[in-house]
């Protein structure tokens, strides 16, 4: 089922703040096997000019994707989440995420398309810190694959 084009441009309310913790950054850096000390050692971060440890570049996706849940679970939009795969991902950074940030995300539907029965949804997440400073923008393309054709060889 094609998604409703009138959702293009719709924005959702900013999320409650997500507080970025040093240990959460450490956990993420270890999970991707990245031992750059700027992720775990505040002194190493200061040596590069940061007030505290910074997060690996893709860390913020966990926050923006959770925020995008407002969109994908919007019953009015009617996306079949069980068929969704991640198509593209892009980030534009104003500055790195760092420990102590309290981040809010505002999600906007940038595009809604249907191609060969697939529903394609582009969501932009604008991430701001507690002072209102823009930190990063994340673009996520989700593709809901076409449903299997209905069985037509039954007795009906």
């Amino acid at each position: 089922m094609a998604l409703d084009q009138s959702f293009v441009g719709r924005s959702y309310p900013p999320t409650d703040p997500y507080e970025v913790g040093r240990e959460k950054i450490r956990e993420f850096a270890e999970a991707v096997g990245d031992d750059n000390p700027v992720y775990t050692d505040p002194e190493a971060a200061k040596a590069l000019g940061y007030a505290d440890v910074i997060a690996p570049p893709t860390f913020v996706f966990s926050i923006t994707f959770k925020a995008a849940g407002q969109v994908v679970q919007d019953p009015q939009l009617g996306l079949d989440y069980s068929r969704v795969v991640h198509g593209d991902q892009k980030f534009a950074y104003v500055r790195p995420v760092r420990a102590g940030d309290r981040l809010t995300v505002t999600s906007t539907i940038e595009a809604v398309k249907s191609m060969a029965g697939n529903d394609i949804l582009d969501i932009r997440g604008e991430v701001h810190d507690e002072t209102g400073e823009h930190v990063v923008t994340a673009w996520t393309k989700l593709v809901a694959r076409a449903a299997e054709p209905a069985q037509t060889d039954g007795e009906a």
Partner: protein
Amino acid sequence: MTTKIAYDDVEVGAELPARSFPVNRAALVRYAGASGDFNPIHWNEKFAKEVGLPDVIAHGMFTMAEAIRVVTDWTGDPGALVDYGVRFTRPVVVPNDDRGAVIEVTGKVAAKLDDNTVRVDLTVTSGGQKVLGMSRAVVRLA
């Protein structure tokens, strides 16, 4: 921001040090916990096969996180990254054996841009197949 690479020293076509990143089932479970993405296609073989996948596959965002290390290790400062985007073209299949899979990443300076930035194009493969497309980063150099 303090990168160890100077813009003036970099030429278009320069290759970044290539890297190989092994990934096994334990790494995927750990990444699921750290990222909060518990989709069973990344840890449950039975579920993955039921939805038509050949086996458990790595999180696309795990592969994206590994690929950019070629750039952040090159510059030394991950905060120098300006833009980073990828297309997920093919899954990284991770068998339940001693070896798992390997993500191979190469990078090349594709263009010198304004404000001491360069565009790096990444080539990301696993098992000889390209797994990310349009994989590009813009990074600010010293």
